[in-house]
């Protein structure tokens, strides 16, 4: 009788242990499944950037790459072969306006890239360098201005005083 009680007690302990192990397994499985869905636990994070930042500017993907009259609207660059490489590599530190204002031949555009690499933390452009330089020389070549240009774009108005 005593042995039977002992056996029943042991069986109860084993049942409880099996149940515990099963629950722990279910819990672990649940966590693993959740991690598969949200590997960074972002649902538990509260320090995400505030929503206001995003509301400031409604940039939809369409505007980002919008081209009008041959000009890439967001940067003002001429839309031509190499535009993406130029936007991605040349507008991180300075604005596109600095590029657009300038006109150089191949040698001087390359010299400018070297100067930026040596002194301004520009990275190695790899295969993109040729694409970028071709884009620049094709779209922003030097213009002949001579020793003094004629006055142009004069806005005529009647002077009253």
């Amino acid at each position, binding site marked *: 009788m005593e042995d039977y009680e002992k056996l029943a007690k042991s069986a109860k302990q084993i049942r409880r242990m099996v149940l515990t192990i099963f629950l722990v397994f279910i819990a672990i499985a649940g966590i693993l499944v959740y991690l598969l869905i949200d590997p960074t636990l*972002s649902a538990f994070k509260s320090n995400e*950037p505030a929503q206001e930042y995003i509301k400031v500017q409604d940039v939809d993907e369409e505007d980002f790459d919008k081209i009008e009259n041959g000009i890439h609207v967001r940067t003002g660059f001429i839309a031509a072969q190499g535009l993406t490489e130029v936007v991605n590599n040349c507008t991180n530190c300075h604005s596109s306006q600095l590029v657009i204002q300038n006109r150089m031949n191949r040698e001087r555009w390359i010299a400018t890239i070297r100067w930026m690499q040596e002194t301004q933390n520009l990275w190695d452009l790899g295969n993109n360098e040729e694409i970028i330089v071709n884009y620049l020389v094709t779209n922003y070549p030097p213009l002949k201005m001579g020793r003094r240009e004629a006055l142009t774009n004069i*806005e005529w108005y009647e002077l009253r005083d």
Partner: protein
Amino acid sequence: MNRRNFVKGAVLGSATTILGTDIVFSALIPKGYQPLLLQDPDPFKMFNLDKGMVVLNNKPWNIEAKAHLLDDKITPNKYMFIRNNGLITETIDASNWTLTIDGESAKQQKTYTLADLKSKFSQYTYQLTLECGGNGRSEFDPPAKGNQWTVGAVSCATWTGVRLRDVLEDVGVKDDAIYVGYHAADVHLSRDPGKEPISRGAPMPKALQDETLLAFKMNGEDIPIAHGYPLRLVAGGWPASVSGKWVNRISVRNIVHDGTKMTGNAYRVPCNPVAPGDKVKDEDMCIIESMPVKSLITYPKSGATIKQGKQLNIRGHAWAGELEVSNMEYSIDFGATWNVCPIEKPVNRLAWQHFSASIDFPKKGYYEVWARATDSRGVSQPMLLPGWNPKGYLNNACHRIAIKVG
């Protein structure tokens, strides 16, 4: 990197690109706080500029005036060109601002608060002409690299501060001192904290001039942020890059200062004249000191039409770097004949001078009024572009406006 944060970062980053603004230390901005630059991306509002000013570059900010906007005798902030080499820091605290004097040729290292500077030293006010070394760059052929300034990168405001000389005397300067170099609080475009956007300076004789100031006021008010609040070194008559903004340290050097944009071909021109487009070795380039003689017709705006028989009144300013303008002329026949016109004395050394004239036109037609200043050594402005140089500095060719008499 967390994809979601990456996307958000990209959206915010591209938003700032589109807005044309830059948020330095954005990581330190409190959550939910919209920085001023994001709330108000319009540079005209942000810097209180006139709508007629021209933005050449929004990263870094480079903005110039047009000739007719510079008509005031003392340039107000709204018409002052902005030439930044780096990013303006968001965290300027004038109450904790300090200026440290150090360097091999300083007898000691000494730090002053703004209050120290204001109370320890006498204050002086001067009108000082500041012109960007690259003003006029857009006209060079072959084109020179950099911001393509036309005529509007010049100003003459009133600057108030203490003399750099008095501060250097208080610190003590060794006999071997030859140069001062400034260091400032702006941030490199690459945001590399180890790099300075610009750190230029001047030889001791220029540093010790009466008019070389550590200024804390412009036109009687705190210096606007874009012009160097709360402390700016101001050295009139030299390339405006010598006048360091947001200055927090000045090093007294026993060598020519070797900071950023002092070496290579920055703010240097060939020591000997070269043909347009020539390559020039670094060692053959010499640092620009005094700016050359130059003038600007600020009234009327180019493009005026007047009735035949009516006189045209013109006016403008002329300046000559370290020197004075001694003679002013205008021509309405492309330099075939020149007419002398009165030029006022400068209010103080290194201030620009004012000229005016009343012009009669002999017959109907298209005219250009060209202005030509001559400095106290007899050197005049050229009508054609002056000597070509790799970086397109020192274009002091005559300014001209178009007039139609009908």
